[in-house]
């Protein structure tokens, strides 16, 4: 397993070129091309903003301007959600490679996570533009934490992607299970609402259990709220947990690896 992990470093050239390929291929032949990477998050933001600012008016004073509040955690969630949805099927759709070429299978789920990360990064200027528009100032001294949060999310997402993609090869149900679970997970995470709102007093325990809520809260505290980053302990704990999870996930993946070529 350690040897294979070391190989993963060797594959970085391959991973890099596959990410670039997927991004290029994604918009090849479409009229707006790469512009879609900006349009997609913008549309997402506008729709959610319209629903929660006008249709279901959000009166909580703490989360104003609501568009920016919601978007600080929604953008990372989109990265998380599409990564897992795509990664789950990545080994199955890449079956041709696994069956016919000597190909490191773990590259496939990792490439989907990284590809979606690029979209996440391309969505950041949209977030920045909205912050400027609504005159929201980020918590400047805490801003370097942003990179840590992204790193933790990357490790966490990759771990889940590895496990899910490997399981989906043997249990095709995983794909549907995951997409439904993610919908539930989205609403169970304080993304479109504020976790400290007094109405959610009784749910605090569940928020603490939910790994993504720590990421969401961290993003919100660093980018949206003033007054320090009080959640950093949780974030670091989750970072440590994610590294362990990654090792475990890689172990599972490595164990199942030999069966892929036959079961895909």
């Amino acid at each position, binding site marked *: 397993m350690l040897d294979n992990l070391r190989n993963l470093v060797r594959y970085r*050239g391959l991973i890099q070129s596959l990410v670039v390929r997927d991004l290029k291929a994604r918009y090849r032949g479409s009229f707006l091309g790469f512009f879609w990477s900006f349009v997609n998050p913008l549309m997402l933001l506008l729709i959610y903003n319209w629903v929660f600012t006008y249709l279901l008016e959000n009166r909580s004073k703490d989360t104003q301007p609501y568009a920016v509040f919601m978007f600080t955690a929604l953008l990372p969630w989109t990265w998380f959600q599409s990564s897992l949805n795509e990664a789950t099927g990545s080994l199955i759709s890449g079956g041709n490679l696994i069956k016919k070429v*000597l190909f490191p299978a773990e590259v496939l789920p990792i490439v989907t996570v990284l590809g979606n990360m690029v979209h996440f990064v391309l969505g950041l200027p949209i977030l920045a533009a909205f912050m400027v528009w609504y005159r929201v100032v980020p918590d400047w001294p805490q801003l370097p934490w942003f990179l840590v949060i992204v790193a933790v999310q990357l490790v966490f997402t990759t771990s889940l992607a590895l496990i899910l993609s490997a399981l989906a090869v043997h249990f095709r149900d995983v794909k549907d299970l995951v997409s439904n679970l993610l919908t539930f997970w989205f609403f169970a995470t304080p993304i479109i609402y504020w976790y400290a709102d007094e109405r959610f007093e009784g749910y605090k325990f569940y928020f603490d259990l939910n790994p993504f809520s720590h990421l969401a809260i961290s993003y919100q505290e660093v980018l949206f709220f003033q007054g320090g980053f009080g959640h950093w302990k949780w974030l670091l704990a989750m970072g440590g947990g994610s590294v362990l999870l990654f090792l475990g996930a890689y172990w599972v993946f490595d164990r*199942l690896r*030999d069966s892929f070529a036959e079961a895909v």
Partner: protein
Amino acid sequence: MSSPAIELVDVSKIYRRYGGRQFSTLKSALLSGDLARKLKPEETFQALKNVSFSVPKGCTYGVVGRNGSGKSTALKLVAGITKPTSGTVTVDGRISALIELGAGFHPEISGRENVFINGIMLGLSKREIEQRFDQIVEFAELTEFIDAPVKTYSSGMYMRLGFAVAIHVDPDVLLVDEVLAVGDEGFTHKCLDKFGEFRRRGKTILLVTHSLGLVERFCDEAVWLDGGEKKAEGDPKRVVGVYVTDVSKQEETFLAATDAKARDEAGGAGQPEPEKPAAPDAIPENMNAAGEGRWGSGGVQITSVEFLDAAGAPTQVVQSGESLRVALGVRASTPVKDFVFGFGIFTADGVWVYGTNTDIEQYVSDHLEGEATVNLLLESLDLVEGTYKLDVAVHKRDGGPYDYHRLLHTFRVKSRIKDAGVYRPKHSWTFSDGVKFKAPE
């Protein structure tokens, strides 16, 4: 000699026969690492059974066998794509597998980008690909189209590009699975030249193919796999020889079975049924245009048709130029005075090769009664390779049939010379001074 480049020791590979759940529980799957729960024998398919062979460095090694004999499985094991169920596979050196050409191509992006990504997948660095890029494109003959998306390529172009990338990986061990059919003649020659270059540079090639000529001409050693087992190994000419013999034996059994079926359908010429002559087909109006079948009044019956080789053994596969005897068992329940025996040979697609009968050849019939045998000896069957159908008949001089077997009997002519046409006249070449040929290899 140093250690072998490829070595398989007692390798077996068992596949599951059909899908469905494979784990008893996920936990046991993870903990044991032994993924398949114990499967019942009828749920599994053993693609390789205790196969061992080793390929020395610099050797070109051929693998022959029927479809489903385990050739491709062996290749996949050597390539490391799948793991053996038991036994060990060791490979020394960098491998490039020409198994599925262009497997990693993405249809939406250009040939140029695909070359880079495919090359990286096969283990090249970016700089190595840059150095070889022009060679690759030139080899694939795609200079004009290299910047077009791969989805616009024809299948030939696609394969050529895949082949070109794979061959330029510059491996120590090259695995080739029946990919020489990817291009036109010219491209195939180029591929063979490239293989030749590999050999000269002392690289190892493992070649899986149905092209036996290629194995004989090209390989230093060969192995024949059948039903997952090693049947023969060693000198390619000998291995191909035993393989071909086995194939023709099987074909013979197959032909016999098909013929028996055809005769059954046409009214059981195999088994004599004197009391109840099987209902013959209606006599067709134009006999020459009629399809296979059997008809006639039944006054004389052909009860059996047998093909015998020179040694008198029943056969249905004959080497071109050898003799073939056709033995007809006939029976006339009442004495008959007016009878003619005839036969005709047709190719499988219905071209009439030859036809004659005893009347044409001036035999005047006198008396036929009871059981008798009619022997027809074709002293030298000078036909090119192929499947031929035989008509046999006994009829009156005016053509009224007693028993007419139309295209019911099949035999096969084999030949090592792949000449064209139908008939091979006995021939030889002589040359005056000034015409020179190279001595055969």
